[in-house]
């Protein structure tokens, strides 16, 4: 559903101010990437764009204030070519997606039966999964922290892009990437082979040790004591989305760009910051308030605050809450006052 003219004006102004100072993170070789945007007014996707510099991308974001902004994990010889074969694929970075609302223990809250909002329980579950994923990427797959772009999606989950320059990794086909997914999700794991591979029955298998390789170390680090079972493996496995990882022409949200479903920037995180991450007002760059007319009644937590809305009753809310409601067509903007747009830390070198 598209936004009303007034609501659009509000969103455009906020997005535009943000992009003037936003620490958007673009790949070093941005001229070999495809860029794509979802427009704010008609919500159509503009694909196959290419840019030569960060200034060009920033200018585009400030002037067009797209609802969503993406670039390709793939590198192409002709990134603007509309056809995959004409674009001439040069390899793709690895991409992982953890969606919190697909995890067990995630309780969502419905706003007016229209939008499902994830709660802290979801974010905590996703953070735990992210911890394990990062461990696998560093300790097992051998990537350095500097190669990992870890970021909040801006809405429900986390993304990790492995910005490696190793041609062997970049050149992996879609089928090959599934083998990595199977490793992370523990699909086809053979517990007996990994934990009980002793030549004779009389020999007592050694317990898994954190300094071991493969799944032995994962169970030692994240498992539950000495117990080894399908159940424990299932809990330690990371439920990354296989479709995302195996897609070699995937578009990823530009890190630190705004997620048009929430109005929050897709904040980059350092490995050490993951545990501190909270889905609250600190994520938003905006400081101010707004008077909105809600289209639904709702009482409950939203972006870390208790919010009370009564349908059609004008209510004063923090400006980031107003932005969230407007982007989801849950309220109309009546008045607003934007005091300040904070310059966010890049959070990442």
């Amino acid at each position, binding site marked *: 559903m598209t936004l009303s003219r007034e609501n659009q004006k509000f969103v455009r102004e906020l997005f535009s101010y943000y992009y003037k100072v936003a620490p958007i993170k673009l790949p070093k070789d941005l001229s070999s990437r495809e860029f794509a945007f979802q427009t704010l007014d008609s919500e159509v996707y503009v694909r196959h764009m290419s840019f030569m510099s960060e200034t060009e991308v920033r200018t585009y974001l400030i002037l067009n204030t797209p609802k969503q902004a993406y670039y390709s994990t793939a590198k192409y010889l002709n990134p603007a070519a509309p056809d995959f074969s004409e674009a001439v694929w040069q390899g793709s970075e690895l991409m992982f997606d953890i969606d919190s609302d697909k995890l067990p223990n995630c309780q969502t809250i419905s706003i007016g039966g229209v939008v499902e909002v994830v709660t802290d329980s979801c974010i905590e579950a996703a953070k735990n999964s992210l911890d394990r994923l990062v461990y696998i990427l560093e300790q*097992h797959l051998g990537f350095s922290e500097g190669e990992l772009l870890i970021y909040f999606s801006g809405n429900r989950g986390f993304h990790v892009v492995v910005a490696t320059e190793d041609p062997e990794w970049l050149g992996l086909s879609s089928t090959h990437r599934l083998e990595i997914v199977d*490793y992370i999700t523990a699909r086809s794991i053979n517990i007996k082979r990994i934990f009980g591979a002793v030549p004779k029955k009389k020999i007592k298998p050694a317990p898994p040790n954190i300094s071991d390789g493969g799944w032995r170390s994962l169970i030692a680090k994240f498992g539950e004591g000495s117990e080894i079972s399908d159940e424990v493996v299932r809990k330690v496995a990371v439920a990354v989305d296989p479709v995302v990882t195996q897609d070699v022409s995937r578009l990823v949200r530009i890190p630190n760009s705004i997620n048009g479903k929430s109005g929050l920037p897709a904040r980059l995180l350092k490995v050490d910051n993951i545990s501190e991450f909270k889905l609250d007002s600190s994520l938003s760059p905006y400081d101010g308030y707004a008077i909105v007319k809600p289209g639904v009644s709702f009482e409950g937590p939203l972006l870390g605050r208790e919010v009370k809305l009564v349908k059609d009753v004008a209510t004063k809310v923090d400006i980031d809450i107003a932005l969230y409601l407007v982007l989801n067509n849950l309220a109309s903007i009546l008045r607003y006052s934007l005091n300040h747009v904070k310059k966010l830390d890049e959070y990442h070198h």
Partner: protein
Amino acid sequence: MKASLYSRYPVALSLEDLSKLVAGRSISLGELIEQLKNYGDKALNRLECAVRGAVYKPYENALDEVSTFYLAIALAQQAHGWLLRRLADHEGKRVNSEIMRERDDDVVSILKLLGVDVEYIGGEGGCGHRVVLGRSSSGEVVACYPYRVAIPRYIKYAEKLLTEPSWKLVNRYVLKGYVYLSKKDLARLAEESVKRRIMEYANIFSEQFVRDVLGDYIERARSLVPKQVIEREKKAVPGKVESAFPPCIASLREALRRGEHLSHHQRFALATFMLSIGYSVDEVVDTFRTSPDFDEKIARYQIEHLAGLRGSRKKYLVYSCEKMKSLGICIANCGTKTPLQYYRRIARGLETL
């Protein structure tokens, strides 16, 4: 050139290097085949060993050995697919056992010649990466991994083996970007590489002029294929015979050709049917190209899903005739339970005409 090395591993000498060895310069494939023809009887003997599973005794002389090897591939390629697979298998196994006989630290350089890039980490004791598997009354029981290979390389080298649980990455000893391997593992990867290379070379030998030059030898090679294999082949259902499509499927195919819009169930029926009689995902995607709302990315995604390459990785079955009737897609009484049964019957009939 170490003659003994190419005697043991003829696959390690490229076709181009062989042509230089034969003629002292680069020559065309046609000229090379003419030269190799002199090894016809030796190549047939090599093929016979592969068919019988007998021990093949390589020639001491590298030129003889490599020439025989390549000619055997050319003959098998021209004669019969079964013979070629048999040869690839036999040569692969031979290399496997040769590797097991090599000194531990020599293996790496030999594997490199076979296109497999691994690292030797055996060091002084030869054990390499030492993993404690368990404890017995007499002490620790350890496993040794004297080799390692970068993960993306492992996935490529072991591509065909990844359906076996023991080769799945998830069941392997993986640490800091490497998969740790034993000598036995390496020998198996070498075997796979040999098979892959033989299949690649076979492609080069598929030209008509190869057939013209080697005529009689090809006939003699074909006579090595057991009768049962030929018989079984006759009984097999020929793939991709459009004239044998059952009426319901044929009409969907026609409707697409005319650029008509197909419903979800109609698309499902056509795509699953085509996939199950041997059409590739690309070919099925191409079939849908004339659809008025064709979007290659979406079509490919859905077809890959049906083929069991995505999502739950379940290969979807073709609708039964009963189901086709309930959906209103069935247009004739074929007297079969599924469109596939109809297809098999007609396609076999066409084959024997």
